[in-house]
Structures are given as structure tokens and as C-alpha cells.
């Protein structure tokens, strides 16, 4: 009942001995995540949060099989850390940090495509498969948000995700996997690239998309629905419907430029494709109720 990540996924943590890295690694393990190793140059032979640390990713994977890597590194080192993971053959990577330089992000996106890897992030809380495992930082102890169920959630936001997911739960549903693709202008995986996974997941009945202004990702989702790449129900909520043009509204990716990226356009495209579009967070729950017969 998840995509990308489950309790068997063998997770490596790059930057595991840092303050954030070790703190959240403990939480990840508590939640059930199968963290098998960590990497911090110069710390090989040590243990962090109970898992062995290696100098390099290559040395880690040579010793311990790894399926996915989580990057707890500052934004200026994200590119190198991703390249290191990809070079070591890791095909699933989650990058949390906010502030990756744009030109680095472009090269990272290109490298991910070339490697055929699914790289989630940056500027995200990560991904969580409810009740099973998480890569990132989620307050999984908040029961009114983090409840297992059959709704796939993909989002560009952090706090707004809590807001919307709370409405999903309030309506009686729960989430299968929650994928935070992040708020950067160059997310390393795009909404439309997550959809086929939710489509194939027998434990996901419908998908909630939490989008915002800027870019063309929501339009690509509309296209995927039109092309029948995704055929399950999709409920979308988008922030920034009334945002003025040309202003960066928070996320670097959230800007309307050259007349493109308005939420109105996105909502229209999604509606035309057959998606349900909520005007307010509360409506996400009511729309789900209107289309799904069985809950959780």
C-alpha cells in the first residue's frame, strides 16, 4: 500500500552524522524505516542512530545493499551528493534541502534523467508511506494528518500539505503514500512522473494533488489524464489562485512569468481533463467523499 518506499526499502542516509541527519534518522527508524547505512567522509567505522557509517557511498553499497538514499546535506553540496549516489547505482534518491542553486538543479535533473533514477526534491519534507516508512521529516505523531489509507498524495508544499491532508483525514480517509516533490523551480521529479506509480499501485484508489502557481507541472498532469496514463480519480487543490503576476510568492518555483503559470490556467486544464478541482482545502475532503464509496 505504497509507492517508491515501503518497510523493506533499504535506505542509506548521506550526511547521517549531522545534527538534523542523526535526529531524523532516529525518527525514521522509529517509524519503521529500514535504514541500513550512512555516509559521512572521515567517519567510517562509527555508528550513527545504530547504523554503520562509511566514508563514501560507493564503499557503503559495496558492503551493504541499498535501494534508496536520503540526502541530509546543505544545498551547496546537494549536486555532488546526488552525483555520488547515482554513480554508485542508486536509483531512488530523496533530497530535502531548500536553496539548491538553479544551475545545479538543472544539472541534477539532467543527470537523474540520464541515469533513469527517480530523484525526489529538493525543498521538500520528503516521502512517507503511511504506517510503513519515511524518508524525510514528517510529524507522523500527528494523528489528525498522518493516517494510513488509500489516497495517494503528491505535493509541492510543506505546511499546506498538513492543512490539506488533515482535511482528507477529517473526511474519513487516509493516505497510501505522500510524495513531497518540493517547491523548487526545477523539481527533480515532476508530478506527471509520479502518477504512473500511483496508477500501478493497487492500494491507491485516488490521488490528491497539492499544487500552486508557477511552472507547468499541473498542466502536465492534465495531459497525463487526457492521455489515459492516469485513470484513477484525481482531486487537486492549488494555492495562489489570486496571486499577482511577476511576484515570487514564497517558493522559488511559485512565480507567474511571461503569462504562464497562473492557477486559473492550471485549474482550467485540470477540470477540462476530468480532474476534480477544490477551491478551498476543506473541499478536498468533500470531493473525495463524493467520488469514493469506501473509506480508508
Amino acid at each position, binding site marked *: 500500500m505504497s509507492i517508491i518506499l515501503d518497510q523493506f526499502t533499504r535506505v542509506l542516509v548521506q550526511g547521517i552524522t549531522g545534527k538534523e541527519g542523526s535526529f531524523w534518522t532516529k525518527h525514521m527508524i522509529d517509524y519503521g524505516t529500514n535504514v541500513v547505512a550512512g555516509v559521512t567522509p572521515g567517519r567510517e567505522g562509527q555508528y550513527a542512530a545504530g547504523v554503520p557509517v562509511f566514508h563514501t557511498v560507493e564503499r557503503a553499497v559495496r558492503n551493504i545493499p541499498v535501494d534508496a538514499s536520503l540526502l541530509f546535506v546543505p*544545498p*551547496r553540496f546537494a549536486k555532488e551528493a546526488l552525483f555520488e549516489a547515482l554513480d554508485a547505482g542508486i536509483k531512488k534518491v530523496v533530497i530535502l534541502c*531548500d*536553496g*539548491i*542553486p*538553479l*544551475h*545545479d*538543479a*538543472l*544539472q*541534477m*535533473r*539532467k*543527470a*537523474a*534523467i540520464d541515469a533513469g533514477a527517480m530523484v525526489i526534491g529538493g525543498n521538500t*519534507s520528503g516521502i512517507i508511506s503511511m504506517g510503513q516508512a519515511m524518508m524525510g*521529516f*514528517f*510529524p507522523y505523531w*500527528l494523528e489528525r494528518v498522518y493516517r494510513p489509507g488509500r489516497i495517494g498524495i503528491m*505535493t*509541492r*508544499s*510543506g*505546511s*499546506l*500539505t*498538513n*492543512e490539506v491532508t*488533515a482535511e482528507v483525514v477529517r473526511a474519513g480517509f487516509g493516505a497510501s503514500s505522500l510524495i513531497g516533490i518540493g*517547491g523548487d*523551480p*526545477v*523539481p527533480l521529479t*515532476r508530478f506527471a512522473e509520479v502518477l504512473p506509480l500511483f496508477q500501478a499501485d493497487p492500494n491507491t484508489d485516488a490521488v490528491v494533488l497539492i499544487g*500552486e*502557481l508557477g511552472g*507547468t507541472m499541473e498542466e502536465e498532469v492534465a495531459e497525463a489524464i487526457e492521455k489515459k496514463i492516469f485513470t484513477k480519480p484525481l482531486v487537486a487543490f492549488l*494555492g*495562489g*489562485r*489570486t*496571486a*499577482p503576476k511577476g*511576484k*515570487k*510568492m*514564497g*517558493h*522559488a518555483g*511559485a512565480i507567474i512569468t*511571461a*503569462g504562464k503559470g497562473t492557477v486559473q490556467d492550471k485549474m482550467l486544464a485540470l477540470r477540462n481533463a476530468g480532474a476534480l478541482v477544490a*477551491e*478551498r*482545502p*476543506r473541499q478536498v475532503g468533500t470531493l473525495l467523499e463524493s467520488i469514493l464509496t469506501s473509506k480508508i
Partner: protein
Amino acid sequence: MKLFEYQAKELFEQIEIPVPNRTFIKGLEGMAEAAGQIGFPCVLKAQVLQGGRGKAGLIKLVSNIEEASNQAESIFSKAKNMSGLLIEEAIQIEKELYVSITADPVTGKAMMMACSEGGMDIEEIAKDIPERIHKIYIDLSKGIQPYQVRGLLYEMGIDEKLIGQGTKILQDLYNVFRTYEAELVEINPLIVTKDGKLIAGDGKVSIDDNALFRHPQFKATEAYYENDAEYEAAEEGIPYIQFDGEIGLMCAGAGLTNTVFDLVNDYGGKVANYLEFGGPNYRKAKKAMDIMMKNDIKILLIVTFGTIARADVMAEGIVEAIKELNPPFPIVAAIRGTGEEKAHELLRSAGIEPLIDTEEAVKKAIALSGGVKQ
């Protein structure tokens, strides 16, 4: 970080993109001398960051010293946030082209966009003659290839005599894009002169804020911001935009802030500002409150639902700010997420009723701000 035209042209010149002869002056002093050096006719261009300078009367062609003085005075009096005045030789224009480079998030490449009809805004070009916009995509690790640029120029239908010059200029523009890690570089218009030369008539360069640590030569001063509050917020790394409504937003998370912004508008309120103190700024409630107080708001609406940005820490900061700054406006707060029980206690201790529901909070704030506006 957007650069002023005069800065963009300096970067162009360093990298050998042809630009007009010009002088930059900060104030009216030295105007006469500067204009004399450039010669007449020449063009006075206000150095401001917003677009539409022509329509706003901030660009003037002048043909003698008296005209120059009068117009310069008028521009200096009209323009807000002006870093200075660019005095530039008048170019004999045969034709105007458009060219820009931005990031393409889908392919992970740089995208160069060009059009044989320049001078107007790219939004207008995209609307009016989309079929005449041509694009090439550049793999950053391989760099721009001359054949790509030649291909673009041939698609634009550029005169064969200009292909050589054009290839060099477009490659150089890409070098500007890469060297300074720009999110946008644009030459609009790229002028074909009467005597068959290409020259950058205007220049836009916007540096990626996340890469500024690698380019410490660029430092935003007050002139880069529309008002003092925005400058002060930027110095603190707090996203802040000022509007002209009554309800001040102080929220955590970009998506949630945008959503609250929409809800306020939906329910008939008017937003005074967008302020985000989540993420790395969640300990900066006091500073955020301080910025709010620079703006004339009727009510402060706080909405958060944080994970790492802990509710209790934010509430603590707010309570402290209230004590120390004694804000003159009432506060409506829906603070949720990690540590929310403790947060609610703290708020109550400061006399604020903690709300759970975002919509309820928005409606309450609108009511307190004086009700629905027309």
C-alpha cells in the same frame, strides 16, 4: 536578484557583447558633462527594476543639452527606487530582435528563446506571434554548441551577413547566463543597426538568489526593493511582499500562505502583505512582527501548520513579540502542527484564543478588519 540595465550591460561588455556607448550617473550632477561626452541625440534611461519604462515616461530621447536637463530632472522626480540614470548613444535601428535564456525544468537544460520581432514584451510576442519564437535547449555539461546557435539564427531568418556576429553574441550571452548563474538573461531589443551590426539595446540579468554565495560581487541594496519593509525582510531572509489591504498575513509555508491569501480574497477581505516566517525562519516571529508593524495593518492573521517549524517555538516567539513590541493591532492565530498543545497554551496566556481551523481564522480576521469590502 534582478540587476539594473546598467549592470547587465557592464556584464555584457566584459564578455564582449556589443553595447551602446553610455554613462551611468547617480544624480543630476555631472549630467551635462556625461551627455556631452555621449553626444546628441542620446537616450536617458531611468535605472529602475520594473518593466514598462517607456510607457511610464522613464526613457527619453533628447537632442540637446537643455532637453537633456529637463527630461533628466523629470525622470528623477518621477521614478521610485531609481539607482541612477543611464545616458546612452542613440542607435540607428534597422530592426529589433529578441533573445533570452532561462532554465527549462522539464529537460534540465538551459533554454534559449529568440524571435525576429523584438522590442515588445515576451508576453506580447508569445501571444501575438508564437510561431515566430524559436527555441534551442542547451545541456549545461556540454555547453552551447555553435551549430545550435547557427541553427537558431537560420530559423529566425537572419541575414547571412549577421550570422557570424549573431553566433558570437548568442554564445556570449550563454556565457553570461552560466558565469553568473542567472535565472534569466535577456536582450530585448537586440538591435540590427542601419549599418548592419548587432548591438544590445537593453539588457536584463536576474541572478539566482540561491547561487549568490558563489557571486559575492552582487549585493542587493535598498534600491533593489520597492520599500523599506521589503528590504529589511530580505536582509533577514524573510519572504515579504507589501499590498494595500488591511489584513497582515504572517504565515508559515509558501503554499499555506498563498492559500490563506486566496481565502482572504475569496471571503472579501483585503491583504496588506504576504509574510512567511516558516522554514528556516520559524524562530524569527519577533522580527516578523517588527516588519508587520512598519505597515499600516488593521489586523494580524497568523496561520501555520508546521513540521520542523514547530508550533510551540513559533507561539513562544509571538508571545514574546507581543510583550516587547506591543503591536497596535488585534491578532487572530491558527497555529497547528508539531507541539501544538503547548502552542495553544502559550497563546491563551497572551490573551489570544487559539483557532484550529484555517477558514474560521480567515473569516474572523475579515470580520475584525471591518468586514467584507466592495
